[in-house]
């Protein structure tokens, strides 16, 4: 296989099997990780480290919240599982739903509907349309899809799906995001799992083909790689695989049992948790059978993240408490963990605030020797990175997805204002309008970059102020003693500033992003599905 082929997006792929050796090596890493956390904890919780008790408690909560989330992920990987392929029964009645909304480009549907028509397992494709444009009807008919005009329904995608559910006869529904191009073997790969009558839905990996377009697109894609590989495989091992993002295939009976597809900003996860609560089983199979679009410009990425962060809060505050008693143990933990993911906005904000608090008020939360912190923390970091890299062998396309995902990290840090806004909206239960994820790049410097610029300006201003005061107003009796602390804090503050500057770069780059319609370049005839199990 040539190198070029390794990175070819238009080729069926699947994650590798989990061997006993893999599990053994992984278990060793986890045990070492736990011991290093114990060692760190033994060092962390010491009275001599407390400088200001409330702030020490706050800092401890921050650090240990992060560590506990990491432990959960580690436990999750312990059961990492790849399901055995099951061939599809013949003669199932299958529908594919894809939705169109005003403003979405017609040419994209031309491609998606054509790709749906190419899917080999017999099925009917439905276009759920509220554009009120005749061209959409035409394009549906051109590719043999049934055109359903569904206008004025609540909840955008889910509302139309529910209306259509009542109109169709089929027993299985694949809900296809319109920006995703399915491979011909899509249904062959997933329908077999429905032989088990308890399986309510089958989720596949979500992958992309427009990463090359920009820094933002690369970073946004990087943020999803581990989730649609090892993370969901682990959840599957605990019978907790969630329906999330695009391209989930549902048993219609299952959807009907919960009164239809969930509605809300996180409609997939709402549907997923309700199905699990009703006792339906789920399957995650780590295969690449479609590729879609990831936001290309910083603004669209932020909009998407705002929508998700607000939506997940709804799940956390509404769905999880109601359904908690009906979920299995690990389902409870995983829905709690997933729906609280965007607390990262709050925690990042607090991490950023700590050094500024010190510079402006002199409050320092912990009295720790920086060197000791590194010496005690380093084993955890080494093992955490080892685990992160080790589980990458189960990415669905390791050749293209493997790495440290530093762009993803930059974007994650640089979107702290967005997450924080999502957090706040969630706390006060305020609405944000439904914003469809932009399918095409939007030009201009995103307003989401303004808080980042403010962050950098504050940093530079504070630096100037500190230098000035150390040259003139700070007492001589304090200068030398505080030198290490002051510059150590600046180093700490600079880490986030550096990442945020990366975010500003992404926003600047987005400004000059030429308009493009990436789907036009996709040649459906070149999609390879050869290592089929049929």
């Amino acid at each position: 296989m040539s190198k070029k082929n390794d990175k070819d997006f238009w080729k069926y792929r699947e994650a590798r099997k989990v061997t006993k050796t893999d599990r053994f090596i992984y278990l060793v890493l986890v045990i070492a990780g736990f011991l290093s956390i114990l060692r760190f904890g033994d060092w962390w919780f010491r009275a001599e480290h407390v400088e200001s008790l409330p702030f020490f408690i706050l800092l401890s909560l921050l650090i240990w919240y992060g560590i506990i989330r990491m432990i959960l992920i580690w436990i999750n990987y312990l059961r990492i599982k790849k399901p055995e392929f099951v061939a599809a029964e013949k003669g199932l009645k299958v529908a594919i739903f894809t939705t169109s909304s005003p403003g979405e480009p017609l040419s994209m549907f031309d491609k998606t509907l054509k790709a749906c028509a190419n899917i080999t397992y017999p099925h009917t494709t439905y276009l759920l349309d509220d554009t009120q444009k005749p061209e959409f009807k035409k394009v549906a008919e051109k590719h043999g899809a049934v055109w359903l005009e569904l206008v004025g329904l609540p909840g955008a995608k889910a509302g139309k799906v529910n209306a259509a559910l009542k109109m169709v006869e089929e027993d299985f529904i694949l809900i296809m995001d319109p920006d995703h191009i399915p491979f011909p073997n899509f249904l062959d790969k997933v329908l077999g799992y429905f032989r088990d009558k308890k399986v309510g839905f089958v989720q596949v990996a979500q992958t992309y083909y427009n990463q090359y377009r920009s820094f933002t697109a690369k970073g946004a894609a990087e943020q999803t790689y581990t989730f649609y590989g090892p993370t969901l495989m682990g959840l599957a091992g605990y019978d907790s695989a969630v329906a999330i993002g695009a391209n989930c295939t549902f048993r219609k009976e299952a959807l009907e049992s919960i009164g239809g597809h969930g509605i809300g900003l996180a409609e997939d996860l709402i549907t997923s948790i309700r199905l699990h609560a009703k006792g339906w089983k789920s399957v995650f199979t780590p295969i690449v059978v479609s590729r879609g679009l990831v936001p290309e410009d910083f603004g669209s990425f932020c909009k998407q993240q705002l929508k998700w962060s607000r939506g997940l809060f709804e799940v956390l505050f509404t769905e999880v408490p109601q359904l908690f008693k009906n979920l299995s143990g690990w389902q409870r933990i995983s829905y709690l963990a997933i729906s609280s993911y965007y607390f990262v906005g709050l925690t990042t904000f607090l991490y950023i605030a700590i050094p500024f608090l010190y510079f402006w008020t002199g409050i320092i939360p912990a009295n720790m020797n920086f060197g000791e912190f590194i010496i005690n923390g380093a084993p955890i970091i080494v093992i955490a990175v080892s685990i992160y890299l080790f589980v990458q062998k189960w990415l669905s396309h390791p050749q293209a997805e493997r790495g440290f995902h530093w762009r993803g990290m930059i974007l994650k840090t640089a979107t702290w204002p967005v997450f924080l806004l999502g957090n706040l909206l969630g706390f006060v239960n305020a609405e944000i309008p439904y914003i469809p994820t932009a399918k095409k790049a939007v030009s201009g410097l995103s307003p989401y970059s303004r808080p980042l610029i403010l962050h950098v300006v504050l940093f530079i201003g504070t630096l100037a102020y500190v230098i000035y005061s150390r040259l003139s107003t700070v007492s001589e009796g304090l200068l030398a003693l505080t030198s290490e602390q002051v510059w150590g804090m600046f180093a700490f503050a600079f880490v986030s500033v550096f990442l945020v500057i990366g975010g500003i770069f992404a926003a600047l780059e987005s400004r000059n992003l030429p308009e493009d319609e990436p789907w036009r370049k996709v040649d459906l005839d070149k999609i390879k599905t050869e290592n089929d199990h049929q």
Partner: protein
Amino acid sequence: MKKSAYRIGFTLGALFLGVLIIVAFTFLGKKSSGPLEDFFTKMGSTIVDIENDYLLSQREPVRSKELEWFNKYRNNKESFLQPDTVFLGIFDNNYQKSFENILSLENSLLTNLSFIQIYTAWGDQSGQRFPEKYAKTIFKLGSTPFITWEPWLNDFDREEHGLSPKEDPNKNGLQDIVNGDYDFYIDEWASDLKDFNQLVFIRFGHEMNDPYRYPWGPQNNKPEDFIAAWQYIVNRFGELGVNNAVWVWSPHPAYYLYGEYYPGDEYVDWVGVGALNYGNVALWSQWWSFEEIFGNYYNWLASFNKPLAITEFGSLSVGGQREEWYTEALDSIPEKYPLLKAILFFNNDKDNTTLSKTLDWSLNTDSLSSKAVKKSLNSW
């Protein structure tokens, strides 16, 4: 059955290897704790140096300028060994956070204090190494560091240093020092001191003749052990090429047997004693005048023919007139005690080392006493 045996074996095997990795880490950590810690400590002091060289050098110094007269002493060991003036100094318990307390007291006393004292114990922790950060700060402020170096031997991880287990490491601890058990610590401390490269007063094992106070006292050691340990350390510093230490031998004068603890003229540069009046704060104490706690012993102390220091000078206010105590003491010094060459104020506002309650020795908040001190000092 077979399945569960397999699972147990699997888990135990993984557990074993996981523990192994951590042991390796810890071992690595311990073996390299010197270099690693060294690295971070050096990094810290490099930051201080860089800031000094590139930023703070732009700033006009105030205190060190006022103390310029002191440079001829602090840069010349000989002048410290035969001082021609009386130096003032201070210990302030807030020093780890800030020296501002000292600076503000100096403002009210209208004088600058040449010595700044700190106390540091032996042990493995980073705070028990040579206090480079504070020594540098003190020097930069124009003063000379005066370090009371306390050989607590219970703060070492004996196993790590290849020492056999000992129920009470302080028992006969001074002999262990002479046997070389603590060379790893002494050598590191000495070489840090050498790197510091400025004169430092070192008061090792003070009040070694008080059987009730410190573990290096007579309850654990014989007088000849103390002398041997002192000589061992001074010699070792010499062998390592450390020339910037001024050794202060500091007995407790109230326990008369101190002559037998004297390590010898070649090993001692100064003699120091404490002079603290506790007033009637405790059952065992009463209001003693300076004459009673220092003057009565002066002739004994003078017989060593070394410069004398009062390493802790102060009075509480319970049971007498504090400001008068200071006036009487300071006014008597110039004529009555010609060998007394240094007085270090004990400015501890939270002393809980002696009693269960906290004692306040500081002058900062007692304007009557600080005025009295200022008046006496200005009359010298």
